[in-house]
């Protein structure tokens, strides 16, 4: 729809509809050109590209005349004619009636709006937090890397009395299937005499399985299984003797062999890490 909206500004004396009859749709508007013998206070050389160009020349805000190709032309006369449109389609139920005060329902309307805002705010915060953490946690270790941190060991592969060594997180992991004799022997040891006092049952979940990190707590060598004076492990580097529970008994090491985090999954499997 082509429409031309022009300000009558400088032409106001010639197009002042308020003081004269308003032209109906069939009658033409007054000509927008002044008599030839009068000077038109407009610079014809300056290009009139838009309504704003004309408006700058107006003595004061004048009438607005709008004409278009296939819609009625209209002339707004004075501010009294400006009618505020009817917004009933957007009003809430409480304020539909123009004859009732809006004060009474004001609290409930405000309450509803504030509640919706608060709920929206909480939801947005929750969603935003989730999105951000998802993106940032994608920068952390991936699943295949994390998988390397755990090891699953089949316990039925390890006969009684035998100690098996696995590579786990770059370190040796000792899984020892202890005999009953070893278990009772370790249980009877006087804890107060130990350098790093710990009762055997505190270091194991099931007494027949002891799982240790095979790194000597002295200077980090790998102890040899089923060696040493205490029926446990012996570190050849500096002569540390560990017992069947991995506790230091003789030698320069200060602490017991580390017990990693592990979990028995089912009867036959243990997951370490």
């Amino acid at each position: 729809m082509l429409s031309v909206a022009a300000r009558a500004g400088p032409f106001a004396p010639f197009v002042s509809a308020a003081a004269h009859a308003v032209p109906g749709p069939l009658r033409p508007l007054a000509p927008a050109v002044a008599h030839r013998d009068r000077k038109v206070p407009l610079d014809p050389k300056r290009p009139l590209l838009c309504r704003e160009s004309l408006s700058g020349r107006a003595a004061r805000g004048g009438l607005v005349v709008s004409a278009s190709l296939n819609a009625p032309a209209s002339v707004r006369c004075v501010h009294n004619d400006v009618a505020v449109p009817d917004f009933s389609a957007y009003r809430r139920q409480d304020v539909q009636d123009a004859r009732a005060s809006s004060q009474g329902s004001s609290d409930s309307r405000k309450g509803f709006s504030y509640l919706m805002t608060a709920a929206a705010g909480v939801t947005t915060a929750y969603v935003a937090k989730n999105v951000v953490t998802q993106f940032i946690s994608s920068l952390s270790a991936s699943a295949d890397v994390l998988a390397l941190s755990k090891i699953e060991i089949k316990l039925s592969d390890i006969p009684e009395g035998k100690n098996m060594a696995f590579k786990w997180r770059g370190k040796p992991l000792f899984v020892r299937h202890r005999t009953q004799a070893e278990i009772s022997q370790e249980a009877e040891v006087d804890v107060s005499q130990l350098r790093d006092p710990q009762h055997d049952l505190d270091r194991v979940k099931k007494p027949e399985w002891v799982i240790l990190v095979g790194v000597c707590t002295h200077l980090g060598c790998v102890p040899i299984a089923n060696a040493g004076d205490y029926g446990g492990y012996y570190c050849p580097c500096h002569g540390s003797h560990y017992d069947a529970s991995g506790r230091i008994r003789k030698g320069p090491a200060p602490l017991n062999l580390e017990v990693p985090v592990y979990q028995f999954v089912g009867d036959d499997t243990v997951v370490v890490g």
Partner: protein
Amino acid sequence: AWGGQRRLSLSYAQTLQNIPETQVTTLENGLRVASEESNQPTCTVGVWIEAGSRYEDTKTNGAGFFMEHLAFKGTKKRPGSAFEKEVESLGAHLNGYTSREQTAFYIKAFSKDMPKAVELLSDLVQNCELENSQIEKERGVILQELKEMDSNLTDVTFDYLHATAYQGTALAHTVEGTTENIKKLTRADLASYVDTHFKAPRMVLAAAGGISHRELVDAAKQHFTGTSFAYKEGSVPSLPRCRFTGSEIRARDDALPLAHIALAVEGPGWADPDNVVLNVANAIIGRYDRTFGGGKNQSSRLAALAVEHNLCHSFEPFNTSYSDTGLFGFHFVCDPLSIDDMMFCAQGEWMRLCTSATDSEVTRAKNYLRNAMVAQLDGTTRVCENIGNHLLHYGRRIPLEEWDARISAVDARMVRDVCSKYIYDKCPAVAAVGEQSSYVCPDSLNHSGSLLVSSCLCMGGVPRHICH
């Protein structure tokens, strides 16, 4: 001075007590006659009627204003220019005004001419001729007047404010009516308007000056007994409540050099005692105009800010009341680029009043208000108008002594409470006229007042529209 009156040294309180009492008599047909006698050679007599644009509907909007124009153009007893000539031969002034809720006609004359003035008024109000040729002639006159009124941007702003704040109700109508109505109103419409609204129980005959109440009542009985007081088939016009809508209207015109902005929240009706406190609050806010000499040292905080940061050309607070509702707000004129700053500061001042109005500024405001109340009543015309207004709004004349007592009872805590009640967290109505290219939008009125967030929540009614 007239009659060489001796100057008495009375205290303020004594002076207030010595003001003569307003005497009120009600005639049999319901017309109220009220007067304040004072020893003056002149007097003002007038009729105040409970009729205005609020009583009109969309089709008859403008009838009251039209009627006011025709009132001086001749009555049945004194056709044509005979009426005006008779008034002028008394050396009297005849004046009238129409507003949204009341219409008034009053004559300022010598005290001895009071009975004649009453007769003239009764003629005007009861026997208006509404001659057809005059009606046609007045159409053009009124349209021209409307065009001239369009250049008074303050009034235009307030009209827009009413149009948006009370949208969809009778208070949205302008007093003058639309051009369509001015062209279409017929004699029958005007006659029906007069018949419906110019009834004795809705009128007050007020007088002030060198008149005696007894004589006034006699004159009223003689001339106003005929005023009708009955309605056909019980069709008494009722005045429904007008709903206030927090909303905005912008009449943008970049050709104008300045922006006029008016912002208001819904205030109380006439008879509400909160009005006194709100007037004190307005006195704290104060007024300002670029021509004020106080500069940065003005007691009004907002004015000092306006000077320091060059926020506006002028501002003034207002508290317009109607029978059951009102508009409490402020209006300012400023350069287009400082609209947001001025709006922010003005609303900040409102918030400050709600939370931390201090005793010293309340005391100052009370004194200012007392002074204004008393100074306002200089002259018989002002007193007469005061009587007419009070009887229509309150049902009785409230004496200055009572006003003084009510003002004295206001303290800082009351100002904070009442301001919070009307301002805090309420949606305002805003009207803006002129160049507003840099105007964003007003906050809803609460502490955090973040522009974007709270502007999306217009609890009052919704509309945030832009109208050319």
